[in-house]
């Protein structure tokens, strides 16, 4: 069981993390706009997260921390 934490304010909504998530549980939260003006990424179902770190490895802005 893993856990991901996003620094939402720094997210630029590029979706690269979504493309590598094996569980496909990341999506852009279109109900929010961060101070940079982007819709930040969010995890739809933390229970499914395995803490594989793929999203964090792919994130160009290093906004993801992974716990296991």
């Amino acid at each position, binding site marked *: 069981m893993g856990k991901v934490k996003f620094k939402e304010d720094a997210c630029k*909504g590029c979706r690269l993390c979504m*493309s590598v998530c094996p569980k496909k549980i990341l999506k852009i939260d279109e109900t929010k706009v961060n101070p940079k003006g982007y819709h930040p990424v969010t995890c739809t179902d933390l229970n499914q997260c395995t*803490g594989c770190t793929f999203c964090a490895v*792919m*994130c*160009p802005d*290093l906004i993801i*921390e992974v716990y*296991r």
Partner: protein
Amino acid sequence: MSETLVFKRPDMLRNVGFHYCPGCTHGIIHRLIAECIEELGLSDKTIGVAPVGCSVLAYDYFNCDMQEAAHGRAPAVATGIKRVHEDACVFTYQGDGDLASIGTAEIIHAAARSENISVFFVNNAIYGMTGGQMAPTTLVGQKATTSPHGRNQKYAGMPIRMSEVMAAIEGAYYIERVMVVDVKSINNAKKAIKKSLQYQMEGKGFSMVEILSTCPTGWGMTPLDAVEWLKKDMVDYYPLGLIKEGN
């Protein structure tokens, strides 16, 4: 259940947000270099040289001594630094406009002298910072603001494969081309970056890692389309893998 932090920002990167465009892979490359420096225990003796281009502000991000160089002159500046501080780990971080165009003379002669430095060459096939103009590395047919109908081979020639050029130089010890588009390729890129730093610390001489990178803004694509384009079109012309090891 206690939780352990398994992935965090490396201490070698300062806690400053990158200015790069959404989906630009410069950030990934910064992290890989920072992690390798940390893992090799070189945090206290690393000196980086920043280029001119999108990564001109790299000195704001790396948590080590950094020196800004004039456009293309990073290998010359790194030569000076390394010769004075022989024990230091000296790296340059350069884009394709910097290394393959205005700085061609510097990079070739640094390799010819087998300067004991590590060069990280980020090739995104375009001039990103100045607004997406055609670079020496722009692919034939690729659109840029100065080649709106795509690069014309007859008019602009063929793109330069810098790694192959460098591998032909006797003094170059280690040359490899990698990309950073998915988890596997990022891990491979990290291995190459680490190897280049290790070779430097062993005194083997000049090494360069060419990292294929995306420029979604300059290419006029979404970050995900840019990744696909890199994997398909760019890798076709710039084959990945080890190009030279040993001299």
